[in-house]
């Protein structure tokens, strides 16, 4: 029924640190479908960030393949990966990483300026509830607001998929819930695939599917029949 957006085949990543080799990811096989809300859950060191980085085109696997819409990421050179990130992926980081010198609106415009087929900046800011704060600089915004600007920035260029690395990690639960609410809404109303990695198990309940990672392996994949509303998540 669903279209596969990204598929990995026996994905492994081995880091060599001096004489020690660390296998961060081992034979990961998974498929992510268009329009899905997926949470990747696991303790720190379980390999979730590695997986996210490879899917996001920021890192390359040691073995195996990551295939996005039939195109293997391993075949792309540096420029190809840059283009892949620009066109298909919207990143959201734990620490927002907004440019301090640009206002909320300008941070979003920064990405819309370089892509075609983008969404209207003000509409997106409206969607994350920051229309009125558009001309504020990051230092004038709360953490939750800054993260919502980051979400707007990721969404505005109209990517296929949002990759969120601990998006609520630096937030208290109230503001965290607001950010999750925004993510869910973008997933539902715009049909964007959202992939959230977190060590916070409570968040998993709002997803369509949950991948459990442990020691670099995918330990379990669970489909959730009735995802709960983000407002009801407690942690």
């Amino acid at each position, binding site marked *: 029924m669903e279209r596969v957006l990204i598929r990995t085949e026996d994905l492994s990543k081995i880091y060599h640190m001096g004489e020690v080799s660390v296998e961060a990811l081992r034979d990961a096989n998974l498929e992510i479908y268009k329009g899905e809300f997926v949470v990747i859950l696991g303790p720190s060191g379980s390999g979730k*960030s590695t997986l996210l980085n490879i899917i996001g085109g920021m890192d390359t696997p040691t073995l195996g393949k990551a295939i996005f819409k039939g195109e293997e990421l391993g075949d792309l050179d540096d420029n190809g990966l840059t283009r892949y990130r620009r066109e298909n992926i919207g990143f959201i980081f734990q620490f927002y*990483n907004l440019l301090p*010198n640009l206002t909320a609106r300008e941070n979003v415009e920064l990405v819309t300026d370089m*892509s075609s087929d983008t969404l209207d900046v003000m509409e997106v800011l409206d969607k994350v509830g920051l229309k009125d704060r558009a001309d504020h*600089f990051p*230092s004038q915004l709360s953490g939750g607001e800054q993260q919502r600007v980051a979400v707007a920035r990721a969404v505005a260029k109209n990517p296929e998929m949002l990759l969120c690395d601990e998006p609520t990690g630096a937030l208290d639960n109230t503001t965290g819930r607001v950010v999750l609410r925004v993510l869910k809404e973008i997933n539902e109303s715009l049909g964007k695939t959202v992939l959230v990695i977190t060590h916070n198990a409570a968040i998993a309940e709002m997803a369509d599917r949950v991948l459990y990672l442990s020691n670099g392996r995918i330990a379990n994949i669970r489909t959730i029949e009735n995802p709960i509303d983000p407002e009801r998540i407690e942690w």
Partner: protein
Amino acid sequence: MNKLMLMTLRDIKSNKGQYIAVLLVVVIGITMYNATLMSYENLSHSVEYYYEEYRLPHLFVKLNKSSESIVSAAERIDGVAAAQGRLVLDVPMEISGYEGKIQARVVSVPKSNDDALNRLYIDEGRYVSGDYRDTALVEKLFMEAHGLETGSTLYPIINGKRIELEAAGKAVSPEYIYPIPSARELMPDYERFTILYLEHGFMQQLFGYEGVVNEVVVQLKDEAYTEEVKKELEYTFKHYGLISVGEREDQASYMMMDNELMGLESMGYSYPMIFLIIGSIVIYMLLLRLVDNQRSQIGVLMALGFTKRSILFHYLGYALFVGFTGSILGGLLGMWLGGSLTRYYLVFFNIPVLQIRTSLGVLAAGILMSVGFCGIAGYNAAKRVLRIAPAEAMRPVAPVEGKKWWGERLLPFLAGLRISWRLTFRNMWRNKKRTLFTIFAIAMTVGIMISILMLLDSVDLLFDKAFGDSLSYDYKVTFTADMHQDIVNDLMEFREVTYAEPMAEYPFRMTNGWRQKETVVEGIRQKSDIYRLSDLNGNRADVPGEGILLTEGLAKSLGVKVGDTISMEALYKPGTEHQVTVKGLVEQYMGGSGFMEVGALNRAMKEGSTISSALIKVRYGSESFIKELEGMPYVQSVKEPDDMVKQYYEYMDLMYAMIGVIITMSCIMGFAIIYNTTTISIMERRRELASLRIMGFSNKQVSELIFNENTAVSILGLVVGMPLGRAIGAQIIAFYPEDVMSLPLVVFPKTYVLAAITVALFVVLAQLANMRRISRMDLVEVMKSRE
């Protein structure tokens, strides 16, 4: 080794590019300082010692032929230590195997060299005492230029007779360490001007001047009484054919040497200072970034129990390392370069008692200066360590406060720029201090370049004006003595001469109230087509039938304007004093600084139609005629208008070498600045830049952001640096004495363009050198680490 020191050294090693760049700037500054000041000390000590030991007189009394007995009158004046009468006469001279005309200045010296003022340094051969007749000591550089040796024969033409003299040896006099006939000649011509030293009695006999002197040189007991003794001398000799009483400072060789020393000393301080200031600024910026980047590390050190003071010293260590290493390297290089510079000076100056010694004082001052400058810069950057609380240091830095800057509010078009450019300007605004420093540093680089290149522009323009269209004669024929104007008609008789014009050049003393100036006045034909003057606007100016035209420089130093009346008196003809009206101001040429109609000049001299030279045009292919002309007894020299230019450009070799060195050094400095600011701004914003890369900005787009910033800062630096360079250049030019050579203030557009291209090149090079930092940025790593 202390662990903190180890950290310092390792840090320096891993950022060696930046430290090498700043070290270079410091090394250059200290090298220049040591090289110039050491040669200054070498030269000034040597010269002083030479003047003292070889008894350079303090006062020079020029007289018309006067009885020798008046010398004792000078000796009796209070404050006079010694006085000596002598004969000084210029004659043409020939030597075998050389076609050119030689001007020989024949100077009489006493029987014993030991008692003499202007004692001679005998480089080779023996002194000319009374026992050896028909011998002369000859100026050393002339002998060397012609390959003459002791025993060679010289043929001076005295009273129209070709005399034979044997060279007794090579000699150097403190009066001619820079052997030029007068201050009007800028460069020595070792082939065509020389000094012959003849025993006094022998010279009197040879010239038929028995019992007569025309100069009295005076040594003072105490220089403090120069003015008093001068007045006394003027009074004493008033009725004995006094022409002038001159001080050492009026003496050509002394003046040139003094100028050179003053220039060397001021260069020894000014340029190195600029380099040290720039070096300190770069160190300051480097350390500021280092401390900010290592906040958490500082926190850890504090938590471990290191005192703030020891951490402060740790960071100060970077600056002191650069300052100390730089001063030692610069000291060594400077000593080596100073030696060569001093030796280079010897090509131009005849200083037989050169004392090269390593001045520990200069060396120590260099080290102190370098360590001081770097230390102050380092301390100012590192002192922020003192404000850091340990717990706070371990936490990430609060986000930088973003702000729109007033430029965007004031100039709406700035707010309408593309985001990448808006970002550029805001970043510059965010780091106001650094932006300003960088602009200042680039401005100084540009300033140094322009100020130096401007000298060349000015010299070119001067020559272009002096020898371009305005002087269209082929040769200037200078006579051995004053001639009647009719000689011009005689010259016209020659088949080869198509045109001839009279010219007179005589030294005058110009007086306006208490202001006095000795200068050469040129008499030329009215409406001359081959010797044209131009007014200050560049339009043609013509000498008036009566009255005088002055150069701007002379008018200024006399404090007169057009319409004023000044008094002029021929230097060699006392009693010719009379009033003359200033009819206009003209551009400065080399040579005279007053211009009159030749007849008017004659009237001023109270003489008939007398001229000293003629300007001629000749038919094509008249080389052999010119040779013939040069050989005529009444002809002193035949020169092309650009002979002087040729000679000057030869002399310029040294100047070009210096200019080359300074420009190279300022280029290194410019590159070091831009390279370092580029590196710093990349390192500082790694996280920002990595975010952009992750969002899909290409390496090129990210580099562009940095490039834009450098470009904007460099343009501002250029805008400030160009007028700054012109101002510095004007200061340097003002330093040249006006009566020797007054350079026009000009910067050719090509100089500005060259400066702009150079800076653009630095920006591109610095960018290329840093491209790797951007393209090799490990995105995952940068995002993970929370600096």
